[in-house]
Each structure stands twice: as C-alpha cells, then as structure tokens.
C-alpha cells in the first residue's frame, strides 16, 4: 500500500491558519487538536488541497484569514477553482475538532463548532464528505496524499493534546 507513495514526493508541513493546494503531488502533514482540517480532492484532475483552521467563524477581530473556518473553507475552494477544478468534482474529508473532558466548556464549544462549520459549509457548496474522523478526546496527526486522496491518521495521546492546536 505504501510502496507507490514512498517515491520522492514533496513534503509540506501545514501550519495552523494556512492552506495548501497545488497540482503536483505532495504529502501534506499537519497536527490537530481542537482545530479542524478539511481535505478537498478533485476526482477528475486527481489532486487535492487542505486547510487547517483554529476557530469556526471570523468574528471581525483581526484579519479574515484562514485561521477561521468560514474563511479557510471558502479560500480553499476558491484556490482549487483557480487551479482549474470544478466544484462538482470535489469531495471532502474532515479531521480534528478534539476536546478533552478536562478542558473547559469554551474549548469544547470551539471544537464542536469547528466541526459544524465544515459540515455546514461543505453541505452548502454541495461538496460530498466521503470520510470524517472528528471529535473525541484525542488530537490527531494526519498525512494527506494530494495525488491519491489517501489520508493517514494517528491519534495523539490526550496528554499531548495541549501541545497541538
């Protein structure tokens, strides 16, 4: 399974509040706590893009950057459209949005609202969610293969969750 993928493919580490979409194959890695990442894949052109947002909606403070789910999802769709995708060819995978019981209510809300934002916006764009691993107490590390739409995921131990975003 991993054989074909281990050939030299560019690696990219995705930082919180940024997004990534390129036509050439990449292995994009990111670490998620309460944050959510949306992977979009173009079934026809066979390439993908991914974002990593920290908060559900832009509340008007600071810049409307991909730190916020609504901005991050719109920008990712926009970017893939610029690269030649048609929205009807896109499918999505959603990851992240972890919350621990020990964490306070606010964080719990943010995690859930982060997930809800992805579901709601993708739904309104009529982009099908083909895989989802969200919520729960554990943070996640994911590696997205932009050429195959394959996502490898590992759980982080709950004690390490505070380190991730």
């Amino acid at each position: 399974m991993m054989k074909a993928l281990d050939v030299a493919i560019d690696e990219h580490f995705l930082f919180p509040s940024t997004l990534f979409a390129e036509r050439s194959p990449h292995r994009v890695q990111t670490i998620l706590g309460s944050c959510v990442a949306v992977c979009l894949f173009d079934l026809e052109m066979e390439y993908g893009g991914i974002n990593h947002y920290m908060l559900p909606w832009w509340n008007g403070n600071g810049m409307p950057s991909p730190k916020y789910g609504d901005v991050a999802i719109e920008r990712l769709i926009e970017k893939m459209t610029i690269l030649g995708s048609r929205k009807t060819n896109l499918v999505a995978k959603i990851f992240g949005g972890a919350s621990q019981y020990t964490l306070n209510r606010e964080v719990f809300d943010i995690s859930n609202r982060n997930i809800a934002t992805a579901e709601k916006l993708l739904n309104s764009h009529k982009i099908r969610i083909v895989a989802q691993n969200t919520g729960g107490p554990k943070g996640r590390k994911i590696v997205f293969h932009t050429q195959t739409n394959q996502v490898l995921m590992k759980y982080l131990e709950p004690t390490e969750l505070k380190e991730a975003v």
Partner: protein
Amino acid sequence: MINSSRHFTNDQLIGELKNRLGPMIDSSQKNEFINLEEEVRRLSSFLQESERGKSQFLSNVRNEINNPLTSILGLASSITGSTTEEKVKRMSTLIYQQAFELDFQMRNIIVAAEIEMGDIQPMNSRVNIITLLEDQVSYLKPKIDSMGVTVKLQLPDLLKFRTDPYLLQTICANLLTNAIEYSGANKLVIVDVTERDEHLHLSVTDFGSGIELEKQKIIFDRFRQAETGRTKSHPGHGLGLTIVHELVELLQGTIELKSIAGKGTTIHIQIPPFLQREGSSSLSISGSELLFTEEEEF
C-alpha cells in the same frame, strides 16, 4: 416529608428545582443561546464597523499611495530641468524618502493579502537576531533621520534563534516604524531583546503620547488607528500592528501592549523557537516526543 413540602411556596420550589437542575440546563442550552445572541450582535456591529473601516482604508490608500507618487513624479520631472547639483541632491533625497514610504506601505499591503490568503509558510532558520535588528535600523534610516529620532538597541552580544527570518523582519520593521512615528517629543525609541526560557523576548518602547485605555483594544484591528479623520497626524493604514499581531500568532508567539496616555507605549512580543517538523514518523513538539497509537487510513 410530603407534609413538610406544603410549607414551601411555589417560588421556593422553583428555586430549589433551579438549584438542582440549573447547572444542567444552563450549561447545555442556555449558554448556547446566549452565545448565539452575542455572536449575532457582535457580527452586526462588526459589519457596520467593517464598512466604515473599508471606506476609511480606501481614502487612506488614496492619500498615502497617491500623494508620494505625485511627489515622486513632480520631483523627478523638475530634476530633469534643474541645473545646480545642490538642488538635484536635495530633490533626490526627497524622492528617496517618498519612494521608501511607498515601498513600505506596499509591502504591508502585500503581507496582509498573503495572511488573508493563508499563503504564508513559515521557514525554519537559525537567525542572527543582532544583525537582523541592526539591518532593520539601517533599512529604516531614512525615516529615522527625517523624524530626528534616536533608536537605542539594547542587545546581548550574541543571540541566534530558530525562527522565520522574513516574518521576524516584517514584525520588527513594523514595530520600529510605529514607535518612530509615535516617538513624541524626546524622540527616543528603545529596543530590548533577550532570550529567556528558550523564548525570544523583544520589546519596543516609545515615550510618545501613549494610547488611551479604550483605544488599546482596537489597535490590533486592521484599518484602525487610534486617531482618525481630519485630525489624523500619522501616516499608515492601520495595517502595521494588525500584521504584527497575525505574524506573531503564526509563529505561535504572544503580543502584549502596555501603554500609559501621555507617557508612552511598550509593545512586547514573545516567540517560541521554531518547531522541528522534519520527518513524518518521528515528530517532536517543544522537545517532547509525541505518542501515537495505531495508524489508520481514510
């Protein structure tokens, strides 16, 4: 027990029920509604603010990009017809200053656009903080000279730190420009840098007019300056500190503003060392190894 309940009034009973069930109801639904309502209110007032901000931004751009450009064109055309060397020298200095201002504003607008597009990819590099700051001061020399400001650098002898040099440059340039701009009567700006608890601490202090308490919270908003309208006496679009704030956050750092009206302002930033992200199997965050359970595929 049943008998004794007769002694309770309805209000007391409701009160008791609230006490017992309250926490449950409160935490699940009530909070949700309160949150929603707050969000809607904030959003609507924000939209109004945003509209105002945008038109202000446009009028700023008109003034601060158009005016230097007009001066540059005017000065350049008069140089071509000018005779004395003295005059040419004076005019080219002015052209340089105007072009510098323009370049600075344009850079900020581009960085802001990159942040908004999520296009900024922090790079990991071992940065000589001393030379980076000295370079920034000499880069800003035209502005420092024209304002007649003294910039005092309080630096350790040697400080190398793992971070993104370009982002840190942009942060420093904006903090310095801001302090120079608002340095007030005694024209002194102090930059203090140390490495403490593995973090980079950088503070920029001016002794200008300071920022009133109620305006301190808007200072990091885009398109906003403490002063607006016709009385506005400082250039810029109010983008500088917004950019600083966003970039510091991107580097996982924190920013703090301390200001006393009439005394001056200190902006303090704290940045952790850049995390090693190499290799997809072993990953280290803040020195501690992450533990993963079985890998899954989606």
